[in-house]
C-alpha cells in the first residue's frame, strides 16, 4: 500500500562479480563486502517513532486521516474539534506501533543471539573464537559437527574421506534429509592443517550475491591453476553440519548477502476479493462523499446569498468572504464532518476479525492431527474470508490425496488369491477393518512389526513349504534395488519406491528376509536359514521396459532370472506353458484392479550356465560400449527376458489418506471443482482419480487428451466439448466486458448434461496452455466435473492455476505438500500446505497448513464459510451504522443553513465508532454462526452463497446505503418533529441544540443496537456483554462527559454539562427513542420475513430445519467405505524415476559404512546430482515420518541433464 515508494537506502553500485582472496582481509576489505552481522530489525530507540510513523502513514487510510486532521486545524474549515480525529487515529497508531515494537524487539533479540554466536576463525595463522558478526568475507572458518554454517562458505576440507560433508538444510528449505557436499580435491588435501590453511592464498572469483539456492558459479585460482566451482562445494548459511567432525570453509558471502538472507524477501502479497471489492467501494464512497459535500456546499452558497446576508445581525461574518468562497470552505468542513462514511476503525476491525478467525483455525481440535502432533495453522491472517468463496481446488496427488504409503495387500500365487478374509460360517468376504486381528508374525524374529496382513492362509502356505509360494517370496526378496540398513539392531529398508519397499517388507515378514547386499551378492534369511546369492546382473527398470530383473546364482549353484513388471509387458514374455495360469492370474488381476490396487506380475526362469556366461560376456561389452550403449543393453535384456514362467501377481494399495473420498464428495456437493495436478503417470493418476471418487464408472464419459501435437490436442478438446454439448458452436461465451473496459475477459460457466471427466497429459497440457489454445482448454475443462492433469511440471501447475484465475471470476485454492507444489500454492488465491509428509517447503510458502487432506472440508465448509459470513455481516452492518450516523448530518444541514454544524456532541462523534458500536459488531464478527459446524458439514450446499458472493456485493452495499438512508431520515425527522415547537414537561425549552443532539444520538445508538441484535444469530455470553455493555457504556460515558466535575475542569470541552440529565428525564425522549428504534427495524423485519416465507435461502432452510430437530448437532456422518467395481487395472509398482541399479552394483556406496542413510550416498559419476531421494525414496510401511524429498523440479531437470551429459 506504499504510495510514497521511497527507498531510503541508497544502493551501492551493483556488484557484478565478486573477487575474494583467502586470508587477506585488507584486499577483501577494499570491496566493502557486507560483514556477517545481520540486521532484520527495522528500528532502534531513536528511529522507532519517526520511522514507524512514516511507515504507518504510508497506509492510505492513515494518511487520509492525517489529511483530515490538517483540515481540522484550519479554523475557517474546522467543523469538528481536532480530538474527534486525533483520538481514534492515536489509538490506531498506538496499537499498531506497540505491535510493531514488540515484533521489532523480538527481531533485535534474535539478531543479537545470532550475531553473538561463536565461530572459529583462522586469523594470523591461528584459530580464534570470534563472534559471528565479526566474520568477514575471505576468512577461513572451522565448523564442527552440529554447528550452524556461519555464512555462505566455500568448502575447503573436511574430516571425512573424499572431503565430503553432510548437511541438513532444515532451516533453509525445511527438508530434514542430509545432503552431501564435497570439497575440491586440491583444497581438500590441506585437511585440518592450520598452517597450510593459513598459507592458503587462493583467489575466488564468483557471481554476485543472489537468491538462487541451487546454483553457484565461480572459479578458484590457486597456484596458477584454475578450478571451476559449483554448488557442490558451497555450504549455505542456515544449514547445519551433520555427521562430520569438522570442516574448513572460506567465507564467500556474509550476513545480508548470504543466499539465506537474500531469500528472505516477502512473497507476493495476497489480497482477498472482499479487499478488492472494498477498494472499489471505498472509491465509490469517496465519490459519494464528495458529491454530498458539493450539494451541501452549493446549498451553503445559495443560503449565504439569500439568507446569510440578512442574518448578518446575529451570525458573525467576515466581510471579505463572498458566498462562493464561503461555500468552498464549507465543502471542506463537510468533508470533515461526513468523513465517518469511511471510518478508520473499519480497517482496524477487519484486521482484528481476520486475526480472530485465524486463531480459530489454529485452535481447532478437529483439524489437529495427533500422529504427527500437528495442529492446523493459519500462516496468513489476512485471507480468511476468501476461504468461504473457493470454487476451484487444485490438488497435488502424492502426499496430499494419498499417504504415499504402499501396503502389500493381496497376491495371487499359482492361481490362488490371498489377502481376503472370509467368514468361517457364511463364506462371505469380510471387510478389513481396524479391529480385525492381523496375522501373527512372531515366529519370525526379523519381522517388521508394523506390517499387517489379515489372511492367515498365506502364512500357512509358506509354512507348508509350498514351492510356488516360496519362490514367490524369494523373488520378492531378491529382485529389487532396496538398501538394507541396521539401525539399533532394527532392519530398515531404504527403497527407491515405496512399492518396492512394501514388497520386500512383505517377503521379510513371510520369512524371506533380505538382510544385506554387496555389489556382488545378496544375503537373505530364508525361513531362518541364511543364504547368500551371487548377484550376477541387474536388468534395471525404466519407463519403457516397465520391468526389472535380477540374475542370481543360488548357494546351490542354480542360475535364475527373476523378473517383476507390468502385466502387459510380462505377459508377452511368458512361456506358452503357463497360458492356463495366465488366465487365472488375469482374472485375479482384474479383481485387484477393481479395488484400486496397483499390480505387478512376477515371473522367473532358470538359466543355462553356458548361455548365461556367453550373455554375460556380451553384456560386459555392451556396458562398456561407447556408442548406442542403451540400445545394445536393451536388446540384450530383451533377449534374456524371454520364456519366463509365471509365478503370480502382487497387489499393492496406494493408501489414500483418511477421508479423502468423503472430503471430495463433500466439496463436490458444495459446488467446488477439484482439479488434480500431479507429476505422476497418467495411469497412476487415473487410478487415484477412481480410487478417491473423482472419476466414477457411472460418469458419462472420461476424456483422455494425450496427443502430441497442437492440432490434435485442439481437436481432442473440441471433440470433447462437442460431445458434452452437442450443437454448441463458438457462441459468445464471454461475459460482456465491464464498464471499466480494462478488466480481463471472463469466461462464463457452461452447463452440460451429465458428468464428465477430463484427463490430460503433461505433453498435451504444454500445447493447451499456449496462448491460442488456453481458452479451448479452459472451456472444455470447466465443463467437466473432474479434471486430472498428469505429468505436469511445477511451472505448469502454476500456469493452470493462473489460467483459471485469469478467465474465471472465481477464487482458487491450491493444496499440496511438496516443493513442486510451491509455485501453484503461490499462484492460487489461497495456498494450503500439507505438513508433515514431504519437507516444509510447501508449508512455508502456504497460507494455511494442516496435516491431512480431509481437514480441507473443515477449513472451507466450516471456518471458511463462517469467516466469510462473519466478514460480510460485519461489513454490511458496519456500513449501515456509519452511513446512518453520517447521513443524519446531511439532513441536518438543511436546517442549519448548511453551516457544517454537527448534529451530535463532538465527544459522541469521537467515540461512536471506537467505543459505543465497535465491540458489539466485533463480537458478531468473531462469534456469529448461522448453524454450527456439524450442520455446516451436513449441508455443504451452505457453502454455495459464498462462491456467488451473495452476502456482500455491490448490490448488498447499495441495499445497505438505502437502508441507512431510510434510517437516517427516521433518526433525524422523528426527533425533529417531536421537539418542534414543543416543550419539556416542566415547561422549559425542549428544542435546544444540546438536548436535540443528545436525543438524536441516543436514538441512533439504540437503533443501531437493535439492528445489530436482529442481525446477530448467535448470542453467546460475550455478545450479550458487548451489546448491553456498549449500550450501558454509552449512557455512562454520556453522563460522565456531561457531569459537573468535568465541566469545572475544562468548560470549553464539556459544554454539554447537564444535558443528559435534563433531557433523559423526559417521557417524550424515551418515547421518541422507542419509536425510532421500531421504525428503523420494522422494514428490515418485514423484508426478511417475507423473503424467508417466499424465497428462503439455503441458510434459512437449514436453520429452520435445525430448529425443528431437537438435537443441535447432526449425527456424525457414517463413513461408508466406497466400493467400486472396475475393470481397470494398472501396474505401476515402480516410481517413474530411473532405477538405481548401477548404484547398487557400483562399489562406491560401501566406502563409508558408517553413514547409513540412503541419502548419504556419494553421487556417482553417472549423474552428478542424482541422489536416491526422489519423490518416493522414503518408504515406510506405516505412518512413520517419511524421508523428506528433494525438490522435484531440480531432479527432473538434473535427470534431463544427466541423460544429456551421458549422451555427449
Amino acid at each position, binding site marked *: 500500500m506504499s504510495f510514497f515508494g521511497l527507498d531510503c537506502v541508497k544502493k551501492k553500485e551493483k556488484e557484478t562479480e565478486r573477487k575474494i582472496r583467502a586470508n587477506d582481509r585488507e584486499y577483501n576489505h577494499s570491496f566493502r563486502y557486507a560483514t556477517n552481522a545481520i540486521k532484520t530489525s527495522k528500528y532502534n530507540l531513536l528511529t522507532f517513532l519517526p520511522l514507524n510513523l512514516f511507515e504507518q502513514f504510508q497506509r492510505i487510510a492513515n494518511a487520509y486521516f492525517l489529511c483530515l486532521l490538517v483540515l481540522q486545524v484550519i*479554523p475557517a474549515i474546522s467543523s469538528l474539534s481536532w480530538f474527534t480525529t486525533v483520538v481514534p487515529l492515536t489509538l490506531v497508531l498506538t496499537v499498531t506501533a506497540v505491535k510493531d515494537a514488540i515484533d521489532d524487539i523480538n527481531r533485535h533479540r534474535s539478531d543479537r543471539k545470532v550475531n553473538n554466536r561463536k565461530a572459529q576463525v583462522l586469523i594470523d595463522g591461528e584459530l580464534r573464537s570470534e563472534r559471528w558478526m565479526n566474520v568477514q568475507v575471505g576468512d577461513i572458518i572451522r565448523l564442527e559437527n552440529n554447528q550452524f554454517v556461519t555464512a555462505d562458505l566455500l568448502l575447503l576440507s573436511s574430516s571425512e574421506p573424499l572431503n565430503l560433508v553432510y548437511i541438513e538444510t532444515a532451516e533453509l528449505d525445511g527438508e530434514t534429509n542430509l545432503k552431501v557436499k564435497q570439497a575440491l580435491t586440491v583444497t581438500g588435501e590441506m585437511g585440518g592443517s592450520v598452517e597450510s590453511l593459513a598459507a592458503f592464498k587462493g583467489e575466488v572469483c564468483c557471481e554476485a550475491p543472489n537468491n538462487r539456492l541451487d546454483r553457484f558459479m565461480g572459479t578458484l585460482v590457486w597456484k596458477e591453476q584454475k578450478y571451476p566451482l559449483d554448488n557442490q562445494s558451497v555450504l549455505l548459511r542456515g544449514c547445519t553440519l551433520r555427521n562430520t567432525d569438522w570442516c574448513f570453509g572460506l567465507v564467500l558471502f556474509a550476513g545480508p548477502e548470504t543466499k539465506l538472507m537474500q531469500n528472505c524477501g516477502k512473497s507476493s502479497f495476497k489480497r482477498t476479493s472482499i479487499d478488492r471489492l472494498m477498494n472499489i467501494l471505498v472509491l465509490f464512497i469517496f465519490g459519494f462523499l464528495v458529491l454530498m459535500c458539493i450539494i451541501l456546499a452549493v446549498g451553503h452558497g445559495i443560503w449565504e446569498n439569500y439568507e446569510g446576508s440578512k442574518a448578518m445581525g446575529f451570525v458573525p*461574518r467576515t466581510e471579505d468572504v463572498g458566498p462562493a468562497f464561503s461555500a468552498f470552505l464549507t465543502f471542506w468542513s463537510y468533508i470533515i464532518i461526513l468523513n465517518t462514511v469511511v471510518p478508520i476503525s473499519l480497517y482496524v476491525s477487519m484486521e482484528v476479525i481476520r486475526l480472530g478467525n485465524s486463531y*480459530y483455525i489454529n485452535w481447532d481440535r478437529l483439524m489437529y492431527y*495427533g500422529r504427527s502432533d500437528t495442529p492446523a495453522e493459519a500462516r496468513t491472517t489476512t485471507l480468511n474470508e476468501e476461504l468461504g468463496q473457493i470454487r476451484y481446488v487444485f490438488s497435488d496427488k502424492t502426499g496430499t490425496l494419498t499417504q504415499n504409503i504402499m501396503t502389500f495387500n493381496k497376491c495371487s500365487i499359482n492361481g490362488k488369491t490371498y489377502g481376503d478374509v472370509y467368514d468361517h460360517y457364511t463364506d462371505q468376504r469380510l471387510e478389513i477393518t481396524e479391529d480385525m486381528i492381523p496375522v501373527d508374525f512372531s515366529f519370525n524374529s526379523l519381522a517388521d512389526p508394523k506390517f499387517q496382513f489379515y489372511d492367515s492362509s498365506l502364512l500357512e502356505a509358506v509354512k507348508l513349504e509350498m514351492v510356488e509360494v516360496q519362490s514367490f517370496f524369494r523373488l520378492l526378496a531378491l529382485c529389487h534395488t532396496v538398501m538394507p540398513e541396521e539401525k539399533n539392531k532394527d532392519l530398515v529398508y531404504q527403497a527407491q519406491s515405496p512399492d518396492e519397499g512394501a514388497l520386500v517388507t512383505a517377503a521379510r515378514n513371510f520369512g524371506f528376509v533380505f538382510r544385506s547386499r554387496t555389489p556382488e551378492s545378496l544375503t537373505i534369511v530364508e525361513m531362518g536359514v541364511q543364504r547368500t546369492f551371487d548377484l550376477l546382473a541387474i536388468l534395471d527398470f525404466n519407463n519403457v521396459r516397465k520391468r526389472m530383473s535380477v540374475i542370481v546364482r543360488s548357494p546351490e549353484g542354480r542360475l535364475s532370472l527373476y523378473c517383476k513388471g507390468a502385466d502387459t509387458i510380462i505377459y508377452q514374455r511368458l512361456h506358452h506353458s503357463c497360458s492356463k495360469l495366465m488366465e487365472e492370474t488375469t482374472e485375479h488381476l482384474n479383481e485387484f484392479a477393481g479395488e484400486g490396487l496397483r499390480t505387478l506380475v512376477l515371473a522367473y526362469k532358470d538359466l543355462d550356465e553356458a548361455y548365461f556366461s556367453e550373455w554375460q560376456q556380451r553384456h560386459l561389452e555392451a556396458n562398456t560400449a561407447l556408442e548406442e550403449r542403451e540400445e545394445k543393453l536393451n536388446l540384450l535384456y530383451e533377449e534374456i527376458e524371454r520364456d519366463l514362467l509365471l509365478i503370480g501377481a502382487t497387489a499393492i494399495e496406494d493408501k489414500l489418506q483418511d477421508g479423502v473420498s468423503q472430503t471430495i464428495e463433500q466439496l463436490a456437493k458444495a459446488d467446488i471443482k477439484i482439479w488434480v495436478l500431479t507429476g505422476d503417470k497418467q495411469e497412476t493418476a487415473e487410478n487415484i482419480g477412481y480410487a478417491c471418487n473423482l472419476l466414477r464408472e457411472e460418469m458419462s464419459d472420461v476424456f483422455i487428451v494425450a496427443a502430441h501435437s497442437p492440432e490434435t490436442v485442439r481437436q481432442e478438446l473440441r471433440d470433447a466439448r462437442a460431445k458434452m454439448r452437442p450443437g454448441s458452436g463458438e457462441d459468445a461465451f464471454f461475459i460482456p466486458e465491464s464498464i471499466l473496459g480494462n478488466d480481463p475477459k471472463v469466461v462464463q460457466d457452461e452447463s452440460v448434461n451429465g458428468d464428465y471427466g477430463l484427463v490430460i497429459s503433461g505433453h498435451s497440457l504444454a500445447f493447451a496452455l499456449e496462448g491460442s489454445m488456453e481458452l479451448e482448454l479452459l472451456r472444455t475443462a470447466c465443463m467437466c466435473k473432474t479434471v486430472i492433469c498428469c505429468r505436469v511440471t511445477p511451472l505448469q501447475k502454476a500456469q493452470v492455476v493462473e489460467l483459471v484465475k485469469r478467465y474465471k471470476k472465481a477464487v482458487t485454492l491450491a493444496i499440496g505438500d511438496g516443493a513442486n507444489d510451491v509455485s501453484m500454492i503461490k499462484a492460487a488465491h489461497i495456498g494450503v500446505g500439507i505438513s508433515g509428509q514431504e519437507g516444509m517447503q510447501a508449508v512455508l510458502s502456504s497460507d494455511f497448513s494442516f496435516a491431512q487432506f480431509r481437514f480441507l472440508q473443515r477449513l472451507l465448509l466450516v471456518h471458511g464459510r463462517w469467516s466469510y459470513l462473519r466478514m460480510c455481516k460485519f461489513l454490511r452492518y458496519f456500513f449501515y451504522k456509519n452511513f446512518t450516523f453520517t447521513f443524519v448530518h446531511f439532513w441536518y444541514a438543511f436546517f442549519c443553513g448548511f453551516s457544517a454544524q454537527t448534529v451530535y456532541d463532538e465527544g459522541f462523534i469521537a467515540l461512536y465508532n471506537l467505543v459505543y458500536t465497535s465491540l458489539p459488531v466485533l463480537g458478531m464478527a468473531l462469534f456469529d454462526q448461522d448453524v454450527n459446524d456439524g450442520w455446516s458439514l451436513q449441508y455443504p450446499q451452505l457453502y454455495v452463497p459464498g462462491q456467488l458472493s451473495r452476502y456482500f456485493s455491490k448490490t448488498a452495499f447499495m441495499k445497505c446505503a438505502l437502508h441507512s438512508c431510510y434510517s437516517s431520515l427516521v433518526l433525524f425527522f422523528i426527533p425533529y418533529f417531536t421537539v418542534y415547537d414543543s416543550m419539556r*414537561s416542566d415547561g422549559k425549552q425542549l428544542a435546544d441544540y444540546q438536548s436535540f443532539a443528545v436525543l438524536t444520538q441516543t436514538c441512533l445508538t439504540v437503533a443501531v443496537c437493535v439492528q445489530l441484535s436482529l442481525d446477530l444469530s448467535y448470542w453467546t455470553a460475550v455478545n450479550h456483554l458487548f451489546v448491553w455493555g456498549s449500550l450501558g457504556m454509552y449512557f455512562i460515558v454520556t453522563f460522565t462527559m456531561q457531569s459537573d466535575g468535568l465541566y469545572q475542569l475544562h468548560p470549553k470541552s464539556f459544554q454539554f454539562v447537564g444535558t443528559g440529565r435534563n433531557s433523559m428525564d423526559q417521557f417524550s425522549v424515551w418515547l421518541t427513542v422507542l419509536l425510532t428504534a421500531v421504525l428503523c427495524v420494522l422494514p428490515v*423485519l418485514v423484508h426478511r420475513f417475507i423473503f*424467508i416465507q417466499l424465497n428462503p435461502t439455503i441458510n434459512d432452510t437449514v436453520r429452520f430445519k435445525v*430448529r425443528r430437530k431437537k438435537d443441535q448437532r447432526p449425527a456424525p456422518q457414517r463413513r461408508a467405505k466406497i466400493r467400486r467395481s472396475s475393470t481397470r487395472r494398472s501396474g505401476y509398482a515402480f516410481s517413474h524415476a530411473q532405477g538405481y541399479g548401477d548404484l547398487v552394483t557400483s562399489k562406491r556406496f560401501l566406502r563409508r559404512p558408517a553413514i547409513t542413510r540412503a541419502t548419504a550416498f556419494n553421487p556417482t559419476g553417472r549423474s552428478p546430482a542424482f541422489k536416491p531421494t526422489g519423490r518416493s525414496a522414503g518408504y515406510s510401511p506405516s505412518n512413520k515420518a517419511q524421508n523428506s524429498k528433494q525438490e522435484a523440479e531440480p531432479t527432473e531437470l538434473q535427470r534431463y541433464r544427466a541423460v544429456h551429459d551421458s549422451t555427449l
Partner: protein
Amino acid sequence: MASSYSAKEEDGQRAGAPGPAGNANSGKKPDNTAFKQQRLPAWQPILTAGTVLPAFFIIGLIFIPIGIGLFVTSNNIKEFEIDYTGTDSWSPCYNCAQNYSWNSSTPCRCTLPFTLEQPFESNVFMYYGLSNFYQNHRRYVKSRDDSQLNGDLSSLKYPSKECEPYRLNENKPIAPCGAIANSMFNDTLELYYIDPNGTQTLIPLMKKGIAWWTDKHVKFRNPGGSNANLTAVFQVSTKPVNWRNPVYELDSDPENNGFINEDFIVWMRTAALPTFRKLYRIIQKKNNMTPTLPRGNYTLEVVYNYPVNSFEGRKRMILSTISWMGGKNPFLGIAYITVGSVCFFLGVVLLFIHHKYGNRNNSSDIPN
C-alpha cells in the same frame, strides 16, 4: 423470538484415527475449551412465523394505546399563540418594526389585544418564539466562551478567540463575549388581563425558574464568586455591542444578575432548529378556585427592541399549559397510532403470506 440454548457438547473428535495418537505426544493439541472450539453456549434466535407475527401484533397493541394517550393529552393542552412581528401595516407593532435598530435609545412600545376562548387552568408558561433565526448556525453556536460564562476571571479579561468578532470592543473585552450573547433577545413582554368591566390588571410574571438548574448553578457563574460586587468585577470589560445595559444591570436581583440572569441563560441555550420557542416567564397558579388565566380579553404590551425584519424572521408570544409529556405536540401521538396500526396491518398481511406460502419451505427438503 424463538430461542434455545445449545448445550455445550462433547468434543466431537472422531475416533477414526486411533493409534499412537495418545495423550503422550499431544503437545500441540489445542485446548478443548468451548471458546476455542467455537462451541460457546448461545441463544440462537431465528425469524419464524411464531416469533415475528406475535411481535407485530404486540407492537401494534402497545403502540396504539400509547398513541391515543399521547394524542388526547396533547389535545387537552391549551395553547395560545400571537405573532407580534409587525410586518403588516395593520399590526400595532408595524411602526416599531419599521424603525428597528439594535441600539435605539427610545424604547418603542406596542400593544396587542387578544382573547382567550378558554381558561388556562394550571400553571401557564409564556414563551417567545422566533422563526428563521439560525441559532444553530455553526459560526453562531461556537461564538461563545464557556470559561468566561463560568466565571473565569482570566477569560473575562481575555475572551476566547471563538468570540470573534464580538470579542473586543474598543480594546476592552466584551462580557459576555460572542455572537450568541450579542444577539440576545431583548423585547419586554407584559400581559394585562382586561376584566369584563374594562379594568386592566397586570398579570404577575415569574422570571425565575425558567432556566435549567444545572445551567444556573453549574454552567453559568458570575466571576468573583456569588457575593462579589458585579459592577466592580465587570469593570474590566465592556458590554456587548448590541446591548443597552451592561451584563451586571440585567436585573436588580443579585440572584438573577450578571451571567446567572435566567433570561440570559435561556438565550444562551441555543436552539436546535431555526424556528424555536424559549421560555420567557411563568404565570403561577394562584389557588384552586380560579383559573390562572380566565377566559376573556387580554393585551400584550411589547417593548419592541428586537429587530427581526432584517432576516425575515417572525416573533411570537405563546401561552401554554403543560402536561406530563410536555407541551402541545400531536406528532408523537399520531406517529404512535400510525406505527401501531401499520404494525397491526402488516401482522395481518404477513399472517396471510405465511399461511399461503410459508408452509412450502417449512416442509421442503434441502436439495442436494
